[in-house]
C-alpha cells in the first residue's frame, strides 16, 4: 500500500496549481463564462501544452499516463479553480470511450484530443432516462453502409462547442433493454443534427441534441454493435472517479473561502469565526471534505487496481452527494446574504457542487447501484 503521488504527478499538480492561481482566478473565470462561447480556447491550449490531455492516455497513444490517479491530480485542481473548459466531456468521457473501444477511430482521434485540437461531448442521457444509462429511446437503423439516427440526447455537456460527439443509440431491442445499445461518432455539423445549446446554471456549456434522420457511416460506430452498455458504464464510472476528485477540490475550496470569510467578518464585536457553533459547522465541513478526499483516493486507487470497480465508483458518488450538499449549504449559510450573490466566488462553487450531486446519477441512484454491486440487492 502506498498513498504517495509519484514525482511526475506531484510536478503536474504543482504546475497546474500555479497556473490556475496566476491565470485563472475568479474574475478571469467569470469573464470566460460571460463570453459568447463560454470557454477559453487559449486556456485549453495551455492545458494541452502542460500535458493535461496527454496525462489521460497511455503511451501507445502518445499519452503519458492514463490512470485514475493521474486524472485525480488534474481534476482536484480543476475543482479548486472551478475550471469550465470541457475536459471531462472531451478527455475523460469521449477520450475514454475511444480508448476503450480502440480501433482506427481511437488511433485517429485520441492524438487530436491529446494535443488539444479536438473538443468532444458524449450524449448518454435522454429526456426520460433520468440516470439509467440503458434507457435509450434514440434509434439507429441500419441502412446499407450507414446508420440512420433519430432521437434526442439530453443535456450533453460541451455539445454547443464540440467538434464531434459520441452518442448512444439503440440498434435493437426495446427502450430499456440492456442489450442493443451502440455508440456512434458524429460531427456536430452533420445534416439533421440540431443542438439547442445553453449555459448551465453553474457556468458550463451544454445542449440538447436533436437527431432527425441523421445518416452516419457504419465505420463511425465505435465498439461492438449492441454491446455498448458495459463500455458506457465503465467510462461513466471512470468519469465519476474523476468527478470525485473535482468534488474534493471544490469542497476544499469552499472550506477555505468560508474560514477566510468568517475570520474577516465581524459581528457583535468579534470575528464570527469565534462563535463555537460556526466553528463546529466549519469542522463538520472539513470532515466532510476529508471524507470526500478519502473516497476520491479510494475510488481512483481501486479503479486503477481493478480496472473497473462499480462499488468503488458508486460509493464515491454517494459520498460526493453528501459532501457537496453539506459543505455547499454550510458555506452559503456561513457567508450569510453575501453567499447568495453572484458577486462572491463561494456561490459559484456551491452551484457547481449542487450540479455535481446529480451528474451521472444522484446519491439515491448510486446507493442502490452500490447495493447491487455488493450483492445486497439483485
Amino acid at each position, binding site marked *: 500500500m502506498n498513498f504517495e503521488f509519484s514525482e511526475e504527478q506531484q510536478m503536474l499538480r504543482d504546475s497546474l496549481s500555479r497556473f490556475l492561481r496566476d491565470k485563472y482566478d475568479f474574475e478571469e473565470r467569470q469573464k470566460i463564462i460571460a463570453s459568447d462561447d463560454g470557454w477559453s480556447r487559449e486556456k485549453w491550449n495551455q492545458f494541452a501544452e502542460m500535458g493535461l490531455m496527454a496525462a489521460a492516455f497511455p503511451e501507445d497513444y502518445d499519452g503519458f499516463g492514463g490512470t485514475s490517479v493521474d486524472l485525480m491530480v488534474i481534476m482536484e485542481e480543476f475543482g479548486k479553480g472551478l475550471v469550465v473548459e470541457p475536459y471531462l466531456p472531451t478527455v475523460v468521457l469521449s477520450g475514454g470511450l475511444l480508448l476503450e473501444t480502440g480501433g482506427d477511430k481511437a488511433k485517429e482521434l485520441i492524438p487530436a484530443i491529446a494535443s488539444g485540437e479536438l473538443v468532444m461531448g458524449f450524449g448518454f*442521457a435522454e*429526456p*426520460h*432516462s*433520468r*440516470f*439509467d444509462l440503458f*434507457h435509450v*429511446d434514440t434509434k439507429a437503423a441500419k441502412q446499407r453502409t450507414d446508420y440512420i439516427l433519430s432521437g434526442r440526447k*439530453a*443535456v450533453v455537456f460541451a455539445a454547443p462547442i464540440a467538434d464531434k460527439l459520441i452518442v448512444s443509440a439503440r440498434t435493437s431491442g426495446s*427502450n*430499456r433493454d440492456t442489450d442493443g445499445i451502440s455508440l456512434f461518432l458524429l460531427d456536430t455539423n452533420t445534416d439533421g443534427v440540431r443542438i*439547442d445549446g*445553453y*449555459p*448551465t*446554471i*453553474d457556468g458550463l456549456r*451544454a445542449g*440538447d441534441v436533436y437527431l432527425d434522420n441523421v445518416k452516419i457511416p457504419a465505420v463511425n460506430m465505435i465498439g461492438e454493435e449492441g454491446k455498448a452498455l458495459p463500455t458506457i458504464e465503465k467510462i461513466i464510472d471512470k468519469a465519476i472517479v474523476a468527478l470525485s476528485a473535482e468534488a474534493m477540490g471544490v469542497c476544499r475550496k469552499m472550506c477555505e473561502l468560508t474560514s477566510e470569510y468568517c475570520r474577516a467578518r*465581524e*459581528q*457583535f464585536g468579534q470575528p464570527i469565526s469565534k*462563535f463555537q*457553533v*460556526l466553528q463546529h459547522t466549519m469542522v463538520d465541513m472539513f470532515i466532510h471534505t476529508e471524507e470526500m478526499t478519502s473516497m476520491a483516493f479510494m475510488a481512483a486507487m481501486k479503479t486503477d487496481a481493478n480496472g473497473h470497480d462499480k462499488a468503488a465508483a458508486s460509493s464515491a458518488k454517494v459520498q460526493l452527494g453528501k459532501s457537496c*450538499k453539506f459543505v455547499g*449549504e454550510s458555506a*452559503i*449559510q456561513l457567508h*450569510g*446574504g453575501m*453567499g*447568495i*450573490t*453572484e*458577486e462572491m466566488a463561494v*456561490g*459559484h462553487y*456551491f*452551484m457547481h457542487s*449542487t*450540479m455535481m*450531486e*446529480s451528474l451521472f446519477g*444522484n446519491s*439515491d441512484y448510486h*446507493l*442502490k447501484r452500490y447495493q447491487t454491486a455488493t450483492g445486497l440487492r439483485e
Partner: protein
Amino acid sequence: MDLAFSAKDETFRREVIDFLDENWPAEYRGRKRDFTRENYIDWHKKLHAKGWAAPAWPAEYGGTDWTPTQKYIFGQEMANAETFPSLAFNTSMVGPVIYTFGSAAQKQRFLPQTLACDIWWCQGYSEPGSGSDLASLRTKAVREGDHYIVNGSKTWTTLAQHADWIFCLVRTDPDVKKQQGISFLLIDMKTPGVTVRPIITLGGDHEVNEVFLEDVKVPVENRIGEENQGWTYAKFLLLHERSNIAGVHQSRRYLKRLKDVAADQELSGSGPKLMDDPDFSRKVSEIEIDLTALEFTELRALSNEEAGKGPGAESSILKIRGTELQQRISHLAVEVAGYYAMPFQRNQGHNEYPAGPEHSVHAAARYFNGRKTSIYGGTNEIQRNIIAKAILGL
C-alpha cells in the same frame, strides 16, 4: 380540545374560495413565474377592495376582526390558490409600526395609502457591515433644523426597485450603547441622494438591492416615535414580520406539485415512476410528516395567542423549521428535475421553449435562492440563540 371547524368557519372558507376563484387568474396558478410590479399592486388592490389587504390590522385602521381560525383558513386557501398575500412591507411591516407608534398625523398621512398600496414600501434595516448584528448599523442621520441629513447604505433591500418609500433605521446618536442611538425614519425614495443598485443572486434573480443614501434630506416629521428609540420599534416589527414565516400551506402546496410530477409517468417515460422509488417517496413522506408537526406547532401557538399569551419566542421555532422544510422541498425539486435542473433558463424570453419540462425550469434557481430563508430575518443560528436565552434561560 377539538379540531372541527364551525359552520361559520366553513361559510367563511367558501367566501374565501369564491373570492379567489373570481379574482386570482387561473393562469397564475401552478407555475412559479415572475410577477411584475403591476401584478403585485393589482392583486393587493383587489384584496383591499374586499377589505382583506391586512387581516391582522385592527379594524379601526382597515383590518378585520377575524378569529385565529379564520386567519388560518384564509392562509390555507390563499396557499391552495397559489397566490401571495398583500404586500408584506406595507401590511406586515411598516403598517403595524405606524399604527402602533406613529403620530396622529403620520397615521392619517400614511396608513390609508399603505393599506391601499398607493405607496410601495421597502425595508431599510440591514447594512453591508451589519447582518445578524443589526444594531451595529452605521447609516448616520444628523439633525439640521427641521431635517435629518442621512448618509450610509442599506442592503438586501427586497424589491427596492419597485418601491416609493423606504422605512429606515438610522443612527442618530453614535455615543451611546449601540441599541440606544437608533431612530426610525420614513424616506421618500424620490428624495435626491437615494440610489438603488441591483444585487443579482445565484440563478440570476434580481430581487434584492443595495440602497445608497447620500446627503438625503428627511423632514423630522417623518421620524416615527421618539428620537433614539428606533430599536424598540424595529424589534416590534421583527416580531410581527415572523407571522406566517412557517409557510406551512405554501410548502404543502409546492410538495404536492412535486408529488404530482413524480407520480406522472411522463417524467420517466417507460421507466419506473420516480414516486415508486422508495428513497424518493421516503423523503416526500418525511417532509409531509414534518410539515404536519410544524402545522400543529403553529396552531398551538395561534391558540396561545388567542388565549392572550401573545407571540413569543416560539415563533423562532416556526422560523427554523419552516425554512428548513422550504429548503428541503426546494432541493427535492432539483432531484425531481434531474439533468434538466442544469440548463440556465433565467434570461429566456417568454416565447422561448424551455430545454426541459416546466417544473424543471426554476428548480435550481429556487433552491439556490431559497438558501436565503435561513439567513434573513435573523439567521437560524440567531433564532437558536433567541430560544436558548428567552425560552430555555441558558
